[in-house]
């Protein structure tokens, strides 16, 4: 059971979440997340042996449908919202990966 949230853990989580935090953000979040987790520890006192988890409130489960191909959004329309698209080539562009 985790007891105290450390700065190192906050930095680890920020890396997982792809967030670049300032030094002061790290301090603030370390304190605030520790407070929230302490408050949430109330949940851990509740007896749940043998209780199935609820991931979804829908009793019936998802609705199935036939997987029929149909037209999707027009490529030009979609690329209009892209921050750095090559619309003539129909591509999204990103910074160099390799």
């Amino acid at each position, binding site marked *: 059971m985790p007891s105290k949230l450390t700065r190192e853990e906050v930095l680890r989580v920020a890396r*997982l979440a*792809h967030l670049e935090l300032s030094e002061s953000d790290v301090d603030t979040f370390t304190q605030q*997340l520790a407070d929230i987790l302490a408050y949430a520890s109330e*949940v851990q006192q509740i007896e749940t042996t043998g209780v199935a988890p609820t991931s979804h409130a829908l009793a*019936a489960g998802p*609705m199935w449908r036939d997987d029929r191909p149909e037209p999707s959004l027009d490529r030009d329309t979609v690329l209009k919202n892209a*921050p750095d698209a090559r619309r003539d080539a129909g591509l999204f562009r990103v910074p160099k990966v390799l």
Partner: protein
Amino acid sequence: MTAGASDPFLTAAALRAAIAARELSAEDACRAALDRIAAIDGPLHAFQHVAADRAIARARELDRLASPAGPLHGVPVALKDNIAVNGLVATAGSRVLERYVAAFDATVTARLEQAGAVIIGKTICDEFAMGSSTENSAYGPSHNPWALDRAPGGSSGGSAVAVAAGLAPLALGSDTGGSIRQPAAFCGVVGVKPTYGRVSRFGLIAFASSLDQIGPFARTVEDAALCLEAISGADRRDATAAPREVPRFLADGARDVRGLRIGVPERVLASGVDADVRRAFDDSVRTLERLGATVRSIDLPHSHAGIPVYYLVATAEASSNLARYDGVRYGLRADAASLDAMYDRTRSAGFGAEVKRRIMLGTYVLSAGYYDAYYLKAQQVRTLIRRDFEIAFADVDAVAMPTTPTPAFRLGEKTADPLQMYLADIFTVTAPLAGLPALSVPCGFSSDQLPIGLQLIGRAWDEATLFRLAAAYEHATPWHGMHPPVG
């Protein structure tokens, strides 16, 4: 323009009837709404974006039809800015989507327009619907029309303000932990969170997918029922939208509540409830009793865990849903030399503090070593919260609680302490955790003239009982006829 269009507090039902009878045109109604927005929305700031040209063009099309397009023919409607309308901005209150223009209609958008509604604009909301005051909007806040220094509630605060101030008779919001009901209570209007699966979420910018549900704001219970009927039903684009028949949620004159059994969870209300809220709540329960309902005390023993369970579950889902804002396909991009640095900088520049806090919390509780202790545990307690309601609903037809523990708090009052802000949702988080329908109906005022809301929670798929109780209560009380001191 006729007299009808000059009354900004005309109901959707009355407006539709007047337009159908050709007493006024859809264009008159649309222009009246747009004029009022132009005149008084400055200090209220309900609207993120007013789509005047689109709305007038649409109203003129309706006026050319030989017969009404549907049950909302010519009725102006405002949409929370996390709901897609083809060709309009959809910021979800975030800088990361500042320039995003939706390339398709949400299912609710298409259904409203099929029913004849005229979409007049998009309303201010907390960023990605995360908040209880609209103060987390990158473009907010909205102001409570009953007292401009007060929060309108959130996250669908702009929609609540628009309806309360007579800028539109109807608006849509989304409710994940109370984001329709809490602002409805704060602004003195009706707000409905339907059963999970009643309304398609296609085109709703996702926050927490097992909880999010779209629903209406209105000034009367009848209008809310009309609007919900128009947007409900199965949708092949959302596998969680259930193929259940959409009933008339409020049959004409259905106000007979004799024999209905209402449960009051006394232990939940034992502490932390403002005295004015408690008085208004007790009065409203007595009114329902006088109308023929029976009232009994019930126990919801796991409700005290509602807030922590909600924040563990909702933030976990949010951390996953918000991974898509990576600067590649849409939205903001920050310059960087490498792909990873581009992701990190884009997300850091695009998200506000509360969204980052929730992504951090959600990522933490899902991460290796903590999943079982926090996320799985919260899902198990979610089961216990659901069971509490199942047990209660063996003996009662609806559960009554105040919608919020206090009337509207002041803007700025809770921004420094996230946990205090979370506690504003203490009575609203349990219904979505259990997937149940719930509504808030105005039930009085505090000593300083701030509205108070009565919350009714029902069995899954039984919105009709909630509408019947709320309509009976509304008919017996003066609150829905009282309007805020604006314009």
